[in-house]
C-alpha cells in the first residue's frame, strides 16, 4: 500500500512540474521571425525526471529526519566514515603523502591543458580557503568576495602597466591591498545583521565591478588589460609549456602556504573567537570578545587571500576585464565552501576540485555548470548543511587530573 501511495505522490509531483515548466521548457517563440518551436520531448523528460527526483527527495528527507532522531537518542557526536578516517593518523599521513606525490608528478604526466585547468582549480582552492575564514569560521556571508579578487588582479595588471612591477612584487602588494580593502569595506558594514551584510557586500562587489567597467581612464573599461606578464623564473626565458608548469608549482606552494596559515588561525585564540561569534554574537561579546575587531580580522584576512589569488589569476590568464569579476564568481566560490564543508580545510579543497574539475572533464556538464551550482547550493542547505566533510571540533586529552598534552586528535 505504501508503494502505491508513494507512486501516486510522485505522479502528482511529476504532473505539477510538467505544468510548471510547460511554457519555458516546451515552447520557444522567436519574436523576430515569428516562429514557434514546440519541444514536447522536454516535457516527457521533465515528467520522468521529476517523478524519480521526487521519490528520491522524499526518501532523503525521511532519512535526514531519522538521522536527527538517532542523533538525539545517542546523544553524542556521530562521525562519518570519512571523518573517522581523517582522525586516524596513519590514514591521514598516507593520504597526505599520496596527494603530495600526485601533485608533484601531475604536470609531467598530464597535458598542458590539463595542468592549466588544475591551476584554475587551485586558484579556487585558495579563494575557497580564504572565504572559508569569513563564512565557515566567522559565519559572515560575504557575497562581494570577488571584489577583493578583482583588487588583486587589477593591482598587478595596473602596477605592471604603469610602473612595470614584477609578479613577485605584486603578490605581496596584492595581498596587502586585499587586506586594506577588506578593512576599508568591512569597517562600515560589519555592524549589520547577517542577511543585510550579505546584501551590502554584494553591493560593494558590484560597485567595484561597475566602477572598473565605467572608469576608462583608470581601468581601461570593459576591454580590460592585456599582455600581463606571467611570473618570471630567475630571469630565464620559459616556453609556454614550461611557464605553465612553473605557475602550477607556484600555485601548489601558495595553496600549501594557505593551508598552513588557515590551519593555524583556526586553532588559535582568534579562530576560536570567530567560531564563537558565529555561534552566538551576544554571548560572545558578553564573554569579552570585541565583536567589531574580531569580525574585521576575519573579513580582512579572507580578503587578503582573494587579493593574492587575484594576482595569480592575472598572471595566469595574462588578460583581465571586469567581466571576470561578477557576483556569480563570488557565488561559485561560496559554492566551493558550502559543498566542501564550511569550516573544514579538507572539505574546501575537495569542494573546489569537484566543482571546477568535473565540469571541465565532463564536457556535457559544462553547459549546465551554473545551473548545477545553483542546485548544489539549495540541495546542500536542505540535506547536508555541514558539507561533504563536516568539520569536527578539536578535542583535548587529559591524562588524569588537570594535566594536558593539548594535542589535537
Amino acid at each position, binding site marked *: 500500500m505504501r508503494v502505491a501511495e508513494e507512486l501516486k505522490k510522485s505522479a502528482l509531483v511529476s504532473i505539477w512540474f510538467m505544468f510548471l515548466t510547460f511554457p519555458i521548457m516546451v515552447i520557444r517563440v522567436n519574436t523576430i521571425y515569428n516562429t514557434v518551436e514546440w519541444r514536447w520531448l522536454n516535457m516527457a523528460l521533465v515528467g520522468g525526471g521529476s517523478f524519480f527526483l521526487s521519490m528520491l527527495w522524499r526518501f532523503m528527507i525521511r532519512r535526514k529526519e531519522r538521522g536527527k532522531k538517532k542523533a538525539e537518542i545517542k546523544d553524542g557526536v556521530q562521525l562519518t566514515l570519512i571523518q573517522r578516517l581523517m582522525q586516524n593518523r596513519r590514514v591521514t599521513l598516507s593520504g597526505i603523502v599520496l596527494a603530495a606525490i600526485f601533485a608533484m608528478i601531475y604536470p609531467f604526466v598530464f597535458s598542458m591543458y590539463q595542468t592549466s585547468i588544475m591551476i584554475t582549480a587551485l586558484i579556487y582552492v585558495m579563494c575557497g580557503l580564504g572565504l572559508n575564514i569569513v563564512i565557515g569560521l566567522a559565519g559572515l556571508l560575504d557575497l562581494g568576495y570577488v571584489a577583493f579578487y578583482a583588487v588583486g588582479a587589477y593591482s598587478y595588471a595596473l602596477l605592471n602597466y604603469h610602473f612595470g612591477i614584477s609578479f613577485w612584487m605584486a603578490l605581496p602588494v596584492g595581498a596587502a591591498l586585499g587586506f586594506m580593502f577588506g578593512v576599508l569595506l568591512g569597517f562600515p558594514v560589519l555592524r549589520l545583521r547577517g542577511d543585510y551584510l550579505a546584501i551590502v557586500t554584494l553591493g560593494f562587489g558590484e560597485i567595484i565591478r561597475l566602477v572598473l567597467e565605467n572608469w576608462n581612464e583608470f581601468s581601461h573599461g570593459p576591454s580590460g588589460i592585456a599582455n600581463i606578464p606571467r611570473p618570471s623564473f630567475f630571469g630565464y626565458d620559459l616556453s609556454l609549456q614550461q611557464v605553465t608548469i612553473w605557475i602550477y608549482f607556484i600555485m601548489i606552494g601558495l595553496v600549501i602556504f594557505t593551508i598552513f596559515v588557515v590551519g593555524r588561525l583556526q586553532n588559535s585564540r582568534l579562530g576560536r573567537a570567530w567560531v*564563537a561569534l558565529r555561534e552566538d554574537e551576544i554571548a560572545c561579546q558578553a564573554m569579552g570578545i570585541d565583536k567589531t575587531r574580531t569580525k574585521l580580522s576575519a573579513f580582512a584576512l579572507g580578503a587578503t587571500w582573494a587579493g593574492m589569488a587575484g594576482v595569480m589569476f592575472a598572471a595566469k590568464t595574462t588578460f583581465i576585464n571586469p567581466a571576470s569579476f561578477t557576483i556569480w564568481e563570488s557565488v561559485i566560490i561560496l559554492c566551493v565552501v558550502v559543498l566542501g564543508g564550511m569550516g573544514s580545510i579538507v572539505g574546501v579543497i575537495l569542494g573546489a576540485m569537484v566543482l571546477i574539475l568535473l565540469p571541465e572533464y565532463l564536457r556535457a556538464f559544462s553547459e549546465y555548470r551554473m545551473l548545477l551550482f545553483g542546485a548544489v547550493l539549495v540541495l546542500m542547505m536542505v540535506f547536508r548543511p555541514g558539507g561533504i566533510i563536516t568539520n569536527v*571540533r578539536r578535542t583535548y586529552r587529559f591524562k588524569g587530573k588537570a594535566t*594536558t598534552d593539548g594535542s589535537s586528535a
Partner: protein
Amino acid sequence: MAAAHNFGKDVLEVRSLSMDFGGLRALDKLDLSVRQGEIVALIGPNGAGKTTFFNCITGLHAPTEGEMLIHPPNQGKTQRLNGLKPNRVTERGLARTFQNIRLFPNMTVLENVMIGRHCRMSAGIPGAIFRPRSTREEENQVVDDSYAMLEKIGIEQFVNELAMNLPYGAQRRLEIARAMATDPFILLLDEPAAGMNPQETRRLDELILRLREQEKISILLIEHDMKMVMSLSDRIYVVDYGKKIAEGSPEEIKRNPAVIKAYLGEEIDA
C-alpha cells in the same frame, strides 16, 4: 548567617538607572549596590525589568539615564560603566550568565570555557600564524586553566562533548564556568536554577556559596525560586514595573507588605 558576614565596601554601585523601550519604561530610577563578598538577589514578578537591569550594566543596552559605577576590590579605582561596550565591561570584571542559555552549541565544553579566557589572553594574528613560544605557552595555560575551571564547577566529565549535547543542568553550569573563566569580581546570574530539579538546585546553592568563598567574588542573582533566594542571599532587592519596591535582608523582605502585595498569590515564605 547573613549577619555573620562582614562585607567590604561597595564594588558595584548603580544610581537612578532608567531604561525606556519606546514608550515602555522597563527600569525606573533604580538604585542598587553590591558589596565585596556579598550575595545579592534581585527578584520581582515576570517582566519586572530584572534581565533589563543586567543588560544595562553589561553594556548590551544603553540606559536612558542613570549612572553605573564599579569599584574593583583590588585596584580600587572607580570606573563608570556607562557607554562601555559589552566586552569592555567584561574586561573590567563583570561576568554574566543568560536566562535563556546562550552557549556556543557547536563548540566543545572546554572551548566554551576557553572563550571565557579570551579577554585575558593576548595573542593576535601574528601570534596565531607564527605561533611563537609565548603563544604556545599561553595556549597550554588556557587549556589547563579551563579544565581546572570545569573541575571546579563539576562538569569536567563532559570536557570534549559539544555544548549542545549536554544535559540541561550541565548547560547551566557550563554557563557559570564560562563566566567565571573571565576572572570576574562580580558574577551576575540570571535565573541559574530555572528548569532544574530540586536536587540540582541544591547542588547549585552549594556551588554558588563555594564560588563566593573560594574566588572571593560578589554575586548578583536573579531568581524566581524563593527558597533558594531566601537561603542564599545576604540582601534582596525587589522590583516591580521597573521600580524598586523593597530592599533588605531575607527576613525583612518576607515581612514587607509591599512585596507580599506584588507577589500576591505567589508563595514567598520558604
